[in-house]
């Protein structure tokens, strides 16, 4: 499956979801839905968050797996938290 884009390739504004379809019964739902907060992150950040959850929330294990230092991984997580906080405030 193709990667989900987050920003418009023409004007670089945030994209919204306007149509969802069921792969089983071909039902199509139209509307205007915002992308989930996590999906609004870059692919690298989303992969980081996924890895973090799969590692049981352990920064030490993340650092070991990513072969980076603990403070580097902690700083990356703090940056993602800051991005998500900003996006949540923008959405409200």
């Amino acid at each position, binding site marked *: 499956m193709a990667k989900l884009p987050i920003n418009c390739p023409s004007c670089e504004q945030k994209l919204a979801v306007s149509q969802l379809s069921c792969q089983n019964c071909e039902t199509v739902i139209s509307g205007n839905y915002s992308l989930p907060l996590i999906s609004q992150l870059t692919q690298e950040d989303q992969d980081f968050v996924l890895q973090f959850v799969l590692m049981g929330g352990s920064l030490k294990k993340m*650092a*070991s797996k990513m*072969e*980076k*230092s*603990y*403070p*580097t991984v*902690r*700083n990356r997580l*703090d940056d993602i938290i800051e991005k998500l906080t900003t996006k949540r405030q923008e959405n409200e």
Partner: protein
Amino acid sequence: MNNILFHPFEEYSEKKLLSFGIVLTLTGSFLAYFFNGRFDGVLDLHFTDQVRVLQPFLDNLINITCLSIFLYFAGFYVNRKTRFIDLLTTAIIARIPYYTLVLFNINNFINGITETLKNFVLAEGIVEIEPFNVGVILIFSICVFAFLTWYLVLLYNGFKVASHAKGFLPMFLFFLAVIIAEAVSKYIIYLINY
């Protein structure tokens, strides 16, 4: 290669950095004893006629402790999640390039030339100065400047990673911490005067 030389704190765990740093700090201290070097301040290196075996080791212990503590205070002010161990490894690793400067005093080489130039300055009449000596001091000065810059860059990069520093205030606090550490370390070494 660039990462190892200037950004080791992003790549390696604190255990690896600590082990590597302690070994090289002990080696650097031993070389300082062997080549009559004293690290009598966080940013200082002086050569003397004779150095007692424990002096460089204690110098470095005081310097690393002062640097770690004051950088930790600065880092903690910027970010409460700053860990002391990260600033300790920063202080230990950052000083490693500085230890190589003692090699300039193999066979009392730099100390001898410095004494000769001192006599030239203090002499009352016209004294001939050898261009070779001036050249050596110039090269030594360039090396000191280069290695001091490398030391400070490593120190700041370590501080930035440990405290996730961004902007002007952390940079200001960093330099303030280094200056205070220099003053305190010099005073402690002077007070102990072992």
